């Protein structure tokens, strides 16, 4: 006996929504999914008419669905946005080059302009080269820090007003758990914000229109829409510790499907006791990018790479910032510590 769609009550339901448990037909699911993203955009005032919005596109499911939905909604509700795709080429052979092919196809399918910025042109290092020096441990630190800045730089080249990224509800919830496990109170406070306010020079505001969309629903949406996306894990392996948080969240979801939203709700309603010391935001004295230290993370990491001391940016070595700024050599003892890579 076919189950009828709980929304229209006429067509046969083809799926059970992971988020609410309702059985829906294809059309009603599409409609609900898109409408929810629309509600998020409207209620959080993410965009203003006439803005140029860069979509951080990796070729993966999240950003592909994001690009698709934003294009649909922009036409349906006359947001008046100029959309374009923004990709970062980390220089990972066998992973990013393939996924960028997907992005290029998306560019044609959705008729959106595409800009690719590469680590190589920005920093002079590809991830492949970095991994060769750093090893497989901690390389995500480099990639993450560099990507954040690369997106900003790309956005500025194109005069983009806002960047939106494909972070979904699972990502946000996972980050909440992760920051609790690490005791990172500053990030815990920030991580549930749907958009970053414009933080001054050199930073383009970012937002997450899919913040309340379940990862599983994104896959369902892409599947039924037959969207073209690239699905391979990065060859330089996802990080172990985040993996714990991810596995835990998946388990939570299987016990109670609303748990993902519940974790986000918790995160949104946390607040930090007064008097807890918070890092102060300033600017990097070298490149001018936002930073809570004298040097931004990306400059420190780069300096480490260029000096052949990859561990300079791993962990906390604020003491050394002065020396780096003054272009002074480090002592032998300091160098010895930073060189050591354990496999």
């Amino acid at each position: 006996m076919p189950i009828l769609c709980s929304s229209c009550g006429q067509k046969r339901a083809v799926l059970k929504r992971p988020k609410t448990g309702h059985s829906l037909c294809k059309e009603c699911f599409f409609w609900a999914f898109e409408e929810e993203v629309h509600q998020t955009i409207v209620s959080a005032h993410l965009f203003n008419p006439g803005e140029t919005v860069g979509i951080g596109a990796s070729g993966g499911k999240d950003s592909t669905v994001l690009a698709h939905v934003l294009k649909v909604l922009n036409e349906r509700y006359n947001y008046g946005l100029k959309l374009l795709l923004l990709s970062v080429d980390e220089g990972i052979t066998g992973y990013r080059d393939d996924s960028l092919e997907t992005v290029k196809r998306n560019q044609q399918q959705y008729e959106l302009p595409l800009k690719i910025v590469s680590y190589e042109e920005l920093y002079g290092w590809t991830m492949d080269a970095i991994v060769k020096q750093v090893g497989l441990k901690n390389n995500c630190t480099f990639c993450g820090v560099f990507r954040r800045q690369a997106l900003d730089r790309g956005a500025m080249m194109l005069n983009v007003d806002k960047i939106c990224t494909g972070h979904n509800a699972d990502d946000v919830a996972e980050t909440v758990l992760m920051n609790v496990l690490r005791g990172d109170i500053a990030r815990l406070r920030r991580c549930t914000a749907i958009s970053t306010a414009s933080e001054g020079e050199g930073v383009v505001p970012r937002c997450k229109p899919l913040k309340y969309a379940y990862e599983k629903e994104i896959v369902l949406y892409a599947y039924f829409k037959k969207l073209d996306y690239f699905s391979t894990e990065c060859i330089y392996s996802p990080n172990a510790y985040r993996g714990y948080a991810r596995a835990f969240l998946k388990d939570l979801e299987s016990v109670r499907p609303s748990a993902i939203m519940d974790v986000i709700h918790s995160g949104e309603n946390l607040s930090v006791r007064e008097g807890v010391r918070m890092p102060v935001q300033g600017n990097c004295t070298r490149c001018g990018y936002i930073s809570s230290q004298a040097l931004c993370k990306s400059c420190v990491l780069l300096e480490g790479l260029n000096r052949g001391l990859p561990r300079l940016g791993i962990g906390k070595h604020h003491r050394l910032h002065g020396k780096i700024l003054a272009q002074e050599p480090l002592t032998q003892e300091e160098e010895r510590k930073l060189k050591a890579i354990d496999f």
Partner: protein
Amino acid sequence: MCQVDEEYNEQLEKRTVPSVSQRCVKCKEGTAALIIRAGDAFCRGCFKDYFVHKFRAMLGKNRLIFPGERVLLAVSGGQASSSMLAQVQEGLSRNAPKKLRFTPGIIYIDEGGACGQSMEEREGVIAELETMFRATGYPFHIVHLEQVFDLPISVLEAVSSAPQRPEGSYKAAVEQFVQNARVKGSCSPGEGHMDPAVLDAQIQLSHLDTQDLANGTPPSSLQHQQDLERLFASVRTLTAKEDMLQTLRQHLIVHTARTKGYTKVMMGDSCSRLAVKLLSNISLGRGASLAVDTGFSDQRYGDVIIVRPMRDYSSKEIAFYNRMFGVPSIFIPGLDTKAPEKASIQHLTESFVTMLQADFPSTVSTIYRTSEKLHTARPPHSSEMETVAKCLLCLCALDTKEAEEASAFHATLVSERLSEKRVPESAQVGSASTADTVGQCCSSGVGQEGGCSSRGQGCCSSNLTPVTPDLKSLLCYSCRLTIKDMTGVESLPPYIVSEAERRHRRSQMKKEISEFLLDDEEDEVAAS
């Protein structure tokens, strides 16, 4: 993808095998008897001093328990709370330096009825605990979970606390107390546990007290036993069952404290326990009340303050202490004993934290320290407790304000609405019908309300048929989830149902007279 900047300091790295030194790190003389943390080997004597000192330091630092105050110790019979009882005994003993100065009593909640224990098992446990409690000489109260069906409505009201004692009054109170103690006979019986005669009288009194409670009333009437069974049978998930049990237990403890004249309740939550609680509360959507749920003191009930003096001890330390110094404790199977890992969110979180702690020994302390940096999201507007609407069940400030801006709560409502029957004017249903789903039940629509339609009518008619009121609008985010996992709310204890009706009537009344009220300060149903 989505790798955010992740730097791990050494603390997260895998543990190294501790080097076992044969000498105690403290006194450098005694032979090490145990290793508390990596590298810290203590001898027996130093460990005892360290453990005992920590308890008193925790109470001394927080200055919350005044001399002579009556304090109810919530003892479940488990390791942590039994250890807490032993610490109180130690601190009150005649020869203790820096003596504690409060008057303790003990409460045990018999939950066997909810956890499927037989009557014989329950009686056996109680008999064992009674021997344990009697040995302390403190008055004790054995309360059965079934007694929630006799609780009065007043449990759900946060009584405004006694006027805050001004800063520095703690010191004055201590001095006063010491002076009183010195002038023999002049002290009032409540504070007089220094005086042997009064002490004797108290012990006698306490025995009377316990007689009355333990044997005077039958363990629980058959009717209530069935009521309790029905209540827990109506809860579909173990997650919600555990949450419900926790809520009811809390109500019983607070009620007992109030009726027996205690102003503080001590809970035995250890640091390991609190880390699990913090993480599972986040997963249950209780983020807004994390600070009250896991902090040292919990003032949500107003007149009775909950304190957690064991929060600096890890469960390992406690287990070691109990074993080395012969602190008795008993094991009582709970709801999730022997349950599979994914049986409930609480159980899953516990095994997750334990697993992570084994690989990364700083897990528990890191999570625990996170809790110290938090406080409730929406601090009450003023010091007035009443102006903030409180959850019917957990008595925390409601975190379910229907807001315009994007939030997880809002998004969930939108999703539910969009997945249900589509309303004709679909384009701008926006906020209007969202409000319906939240349970402002005065909308005419019966059909749209999938959520509470099973429970029947809106509250407009509740004056006529007040059998099953809509609870949703009176609950916080997390308690809504618990109630949602129930097949019906009819089986809830009467005090909860009647209080819900009362609040609905109040808000109904207020709505009717709203145009004549001069100050439109938003105070909701909780004001009574």
